[in-house]
């Protein structure tokens, strides 16, 4: 595997287990031997699950899909930080070389009233979908597709919109925030459209509805600690939150 130095790790894993959204849940401790430093964190979990299955125990449920940092499904709170100790990576892109032999690793699900645990480490992030559905869309012309170059967009606006659009809706911002606030996510989704001419039609309505939905889902209130920006795997900037505030104040005043 890869270009690793062939080092193997022995680890103690403390993993949250919870039967379903109503069950109480608790930590379960597992010993793992001979984990390659080339493995991703999720591959390490695959090894653990195979071991559990071979012992006739129930495998640990966790979310994952692309395993290349683009889908946003993986969601583990590792040793006190969402997506683990590395900056700007998702759990699937975190490698075991970030850990040392003999480490104890605590793995928990995202904790938020708006993200109920489905099972073990898998949480329901439907709240994000409902926020998007409330206003994260644009009106488009029907008929023939327009020539893309018909609409002039300043380069800076295109760039800023693009970097906001990099948000993969993983929810690490909520998980990291001491207030369980979803402001970074919502600000990315509002910014991405507010910056472009295509987003102008629903601009006011969009921010009003998305913030309202965000509040109704039970997410907390932002206190600008900046934990979200520091933990976001896509490095979504706090400037987006300032823009969201501006959009919201503007839309409410007029």
């Amino acid at each position, binding site marked *: 595997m890869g270009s690793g130095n062939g080092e193997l790790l022995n680890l103690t894993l*403390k993993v*949250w287990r919870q039967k379903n959204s109503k069950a109480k849940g608790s*930590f379960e401790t597992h010993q793992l031997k001979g984990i390659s430093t080339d493995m991703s964190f999720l591959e390490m979990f695959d090894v653990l699950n195979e071991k559990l299955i071979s012992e006739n125990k129930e495998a640990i449920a966790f979310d994952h899909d692309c395993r290349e940092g683009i889908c946003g499904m993986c969601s583990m*709170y590792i*040793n*006190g*930080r969402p997506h683990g*100790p590395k900056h700007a990576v998702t759990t699937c892109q975190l490698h075991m070389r970030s850990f040392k032999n003999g480490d104890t690793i*605590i793995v*928990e699900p995202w*904790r*938020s*009233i*708006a993200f109920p645990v489905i099972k073990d480490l898998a949480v329901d992030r439907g709240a994000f979908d409902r926020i998007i559905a409330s206003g994260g869309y644009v009106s488009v012309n029907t008929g023939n597709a327009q020539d893309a170059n018909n609409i002039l967009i300043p380069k800076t606006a295109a760039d800023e919109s693009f970097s906001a659009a990099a948000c993969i809706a993983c929810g690490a911002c909520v998980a*990291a925030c*001491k*207030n*369980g*606030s979803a*402001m970074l996510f919502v600000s990315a989704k509002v910014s991405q459209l507010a910056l472009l001419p295509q987003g102008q039609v629903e601009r006011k309505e969009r921010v*009003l509805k998305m*913030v*309202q939905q*965000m*509040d109704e889902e*039970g*997410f*907390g*209130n*932002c*206190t*600008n*600690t*900046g*934990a979200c920006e*520091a*933990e976001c795997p896509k490095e979504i900037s*706090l*400037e987006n*939150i*300032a*823009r*969201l*505030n*501006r*959009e*919201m*104040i503007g839309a*409410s*005043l007029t």
Partner: protein
Amino acid sequence: MSQGFLKSSIGKKTVMALTGIFLISFLVVHCFINSLIFFNDGGLTFNTGANFMAHNWLIRAGELVLFAGLILHIIQALILTIENRKARPIGYEMVNGNANSSWYSRSMGLLGTLLLIFLIIHLTHFWVKSRFTGLPGEDANGHENLYAVMQTTFTMLWVVVVYTLAMVSLAYHLLHGFQSAFQTLGLNHKKYTPLIKNIGVAFSIIIPFIFALMPILMYAGVIK
């Protein structure tokens, strides 16, 4: 502004930011007037300033607005804190907060509570005496002698310690609060935000430092 806005999370935060900036502006005035003691003229200049503040109707009206702003800031903070607690009913086993944020940005409620306790002590030391229970006589210029109250209050070591610690709390509260207020109001700009942040840091250090000097220098007998 619509009612819905003030009920929204961003609306409540806006109230925090606006009242915060208002309280910051008060600090400037308060610090300026108090700095008159540094003339070290037995409080004559300071008492002149304090008398003006005590008897100008505009300032007295402003005092009411100030208390209203303060109470709003506190109540809104309580509401936000309660809501934020509810947003995470089950906490984490392990949280590495220092990896992603400063301790003081996460401790605004604690710092604010310390400041409130200090404020109650501080108001009983000075404001209650000057407004209600009366001051000890007049100075050479015939002004009410608030300076004399400072002199006696700051002979007590515990008072000096409490005031100094409170100013440390104030510094950290401002260190986060100053720039946070601008972020909440959406006043973010590539050119100006670094400037605002720098001004915020300078303000957060300088103002509490000047305030802390007052009890310390009076206790030490440098200012007589």
